[in-house]
């Protein structure tokens, strides 16, 4: 059975290769990096078997779970969608252009950075037999993603003029940019731009899909079941089937894993992950950079004394980052350097790691006349670790003479009252993994309310210039310069990047190979 699949996939790859050669050499430069046959080789000793059903559990979203992933707010909605639908591409540091393409063969950038041309891979079939064309990509981007309320899809609308996007024949989509950007491939191939059939309005079981699995069952708030889609354009899954379950409580998820009821548990709390340490049948597989969530504290520059850069620096020096990593996350986290998006290609390079220097912090506060200042730190349990870190930060601040305490709001409240949030002097926050310069433009540039008073048009301009620079080395230099300003004078204390603490049964392999670790994919997974 497996050989049959290999052969079909091989033939298709061959056909695609031939088509590419027929179209012209220019396209070869942007040719897809289809998985080479060598990755089918099994590791020494063990040979992952074909077949079986992998059961994975996620936090889920309760009643708000939906098949419409353009409006589904929980992580599980996107994981489900990734298994079900084809993607434009994923970030892959080892791939050409830094991406691994999905239903695309490549992306061309116009010389003046005014338009991006997406080349559709021919021969991608939906489950209803029809072929994926440019119209489908266009619809997914300009109709569905553009109208999505979710923050993650705003990246497309913020960078591209989706209203004027058009299909050029069956296999080309032209996206004009809103302003010149050179890193558009990184935006489009984030991993969450999935493609559905042109004209799709309703999302339901049985709709045509082109992802590695076919949806067979869905109960919102409970889970979904999939079976392998044998006609998948890319890597046909080794698994026979897939089950994605919702289990809200972290210890319950871990309990289901150790009890053998599931094979993969997503995003466990740090304490729960720690208790799995001595269980022989499971292993911890935390996500790796850049798929880390930054946990930060924002200082409101409109509130005295945070308008004084010395006070801001004092706060950044006062925090004991390593203690946070060790105490809250038991070492399963990375120290942050007060800048978001660590690990992305456009993250600042060469900046020294800020030290933990309470003496200097105290001196700076004295110099600024803010000795003994009083401030409350407001936060909430929006993501695990936020409240714990705030508790430790408050203790660190007390050690440099600041009079402070934690004001904890019930879950959901921190951002629900946004005007109140934007007025807080010192607030907890978190950053999702999105490329550094795009993060800056979306949430900090132009005096956005979530910038907490940071308004530096010089830095904004520099960031825009960095993004518009085709020369990668020069772009990186400009980007680093902009981020250095943020690092020196900014109002963000970002001490820790935490991974998603995933755990799997021993013997499960290949989840990481599917990239975009933040929302695990199972097309390359196998059971022991």
């Amino acid at each position, binding site marked *: 059975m497996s050989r049959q699949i290999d052969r079909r996939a091989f033939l298709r790859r061959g056909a695609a290769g031939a088509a590419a050669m027929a179209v012209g050499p220019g396209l070869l430069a942007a040719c897809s990096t289809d998985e080479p046959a060598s990755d089918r080789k099994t590791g020494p000793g063990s040979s992952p078997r074909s077949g079986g059903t992998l059961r994975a559990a996620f936090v889920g979203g309760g009643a708000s779970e939906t098949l419409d992933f353009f409006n589904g707010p929980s992580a599980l909605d996107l994981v489900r969608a990734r298994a079900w639908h084809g993607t434009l591409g994923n970030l892959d540091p080892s791939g050409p252009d830094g991406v691994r393409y999905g239903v695309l063969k490549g992306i061309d950038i116009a010389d003046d950075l005014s338009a991006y041309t997406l080349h559709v891979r021919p021969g991608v079939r939906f489950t209803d037999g029809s072929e994926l064309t440019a119209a489908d990509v266009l619809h997914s981007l300009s109709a569905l993603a553009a109208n999505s309320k979710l923050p993650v899809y*705003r990246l497309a609308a913020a960078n591209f003029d989706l209203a004027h996007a058009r299909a050029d024949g069956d296999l080309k989509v032209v996206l004009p940019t809103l302003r010149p950007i050179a890193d558009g491939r990184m935006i489009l191939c984030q991993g969450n731009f999935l493609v559905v059939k042109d004209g799709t309005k309703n999302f339901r079981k049985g709709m045509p899909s082109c992802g590695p699995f076919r949806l067979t069952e869905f109960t919102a708030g409970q889970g979904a079941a999939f079976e392998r889609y044998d006609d998948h354009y890319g890597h046909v899954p080794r698994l026979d089937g897939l089950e994605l379950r919702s289990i809200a409580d972290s210890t319950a998820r871990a309990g289901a894993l150790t009890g053998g009821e599931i094979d993969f548990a997503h995003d466990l709390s740090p304490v729960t992950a720690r208790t799995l340490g001595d269980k022989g049948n499971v292993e911890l597989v935390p996500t790796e950079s850049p798929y880390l969530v930054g946990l930060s504290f924002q200082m409101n520059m409109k509130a005295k004394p945070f308008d004084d850069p010395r006070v801001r620096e004092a706060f950044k020096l006062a925090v004991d980052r390593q203690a946070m990593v060790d105490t809250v996350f038991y070492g399963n986290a990375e120290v942050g350097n007060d800048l978001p998006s660590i690990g992305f290609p456009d993250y600042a390079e060469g900046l020294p790691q800020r030290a933990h220097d309470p003496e200097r912090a105290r001196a700076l506060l004295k110099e600024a006349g803010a000795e003994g200042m009083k401030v409350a730190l407001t936060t909430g349990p929006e993501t695990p670790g936020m409240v714990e870190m705030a508790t430790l930060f408050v203790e660190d601040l007390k050690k440099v003479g600041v009079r402070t305490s934690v004001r904890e709001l019930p879950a959901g409240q921190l951002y629900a009252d946004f005007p109140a949030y934007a007025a807080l002097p010192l607030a907890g926050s978190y950053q999702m993994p999105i490329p550094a310069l795009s993060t800056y433009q979306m949430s900090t540039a132009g005096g956005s309310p979530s910038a907490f008073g940071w308004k530096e048009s010089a830095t904004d301009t520099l960031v825009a210039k960095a993004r518009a620079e085709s020369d990668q080395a020069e772009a990186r230099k400009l980007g680093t310069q902009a981020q250095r300003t943020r690092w020196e004078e900014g109002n963000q204390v970002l001490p820790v990047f935490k991974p998603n603490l995933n755990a799997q049964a021993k013997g499960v392999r290949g989840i990481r190979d599917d990239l975009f670790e933040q929302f695990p994919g199972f097309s390359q997974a196998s059971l022991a």
Partner: protein
Amino acid sequence: MSLIAFVGRRLMGAAVLLVVLSAAIFAATAVLPGDAVSAVAGMDASDAQRAEVRAELGLDRPVAERYADWVAGAVRGDLGRGFVGERPVTDVLATRLPNSLLLAGLTLAVTAPLAALLGLWTGLRGGGADRFVSTAAQVLAAVPEFVIAALLVAVLAVWLELLPRVSVIPLGGTPLDVPHALILPVLTLSAVGLAVATRLLRVSAADVAATPYIEAARLNGVRGVRLAVRHILPNAAGPAVQALTLTTGALVGSAVVVENVFDYPGIGRELQLAVAARDIPMVQGIATALAGVMLLVLLTGDICARLLDARKGHQR
């Protein structure tokens, strides 16, 4: 008045009460600080985007107008869609409410007979057994629910490994498909209800046992179990029935702790998430449904009380 007339009047009263309560809930959620815009648009949305989302969700219209719209829809059976994820509220109720009802019902089914047994036995016997059982009942009633839940998990699931820590329900199925998933939640919830009902029954049973009516029955040769069940129980059950109805009705919506610890797909957790996200249609729909359930349960309890009264009347 006849039973039918009684039920009819109570149903009408319940309907009026539901309307009043739904208005109160709507007003309360409207006054809460914050709204669902951040949950839907994300925290780094621009002001323009927020305004757009606010208009889409209808949050820029006056409260009274929104409530009137909701009532108009509710009467037709359309409870609207949640703000977050846009799922129809009736869908959520249809899938989660039966699970909570099942849990409450099973808890009642376990508590009532056990309470009758223990209450009658200790109330009629007295002495050492009485003291022991009543003390044990009081101790059990005093332990907070989440402590019971944690202890049950620690002992039965982790230490003795008799039951799985969490039971994954097959897709598209109900908790009934995995009966052993119900054991721990029902045990936890029964603990308190059992204690209260046992104590009430014990007291009433002892009272009734001292009445002349029972003396007469005893003199007539009725004794033992027959005496207890056919003569004492109907007369003594009144207050216990009242208490059990109140606790069972409240259980449907308030089993949040159990739902969290055992990952039981009930409605309490949905309410918690909805309030956190300020998802007004969802809060409105769930809260009104829970109030409706409570009213029905209270009505059932009152009907039982009336039937018991009727029996009492006959026997006197």
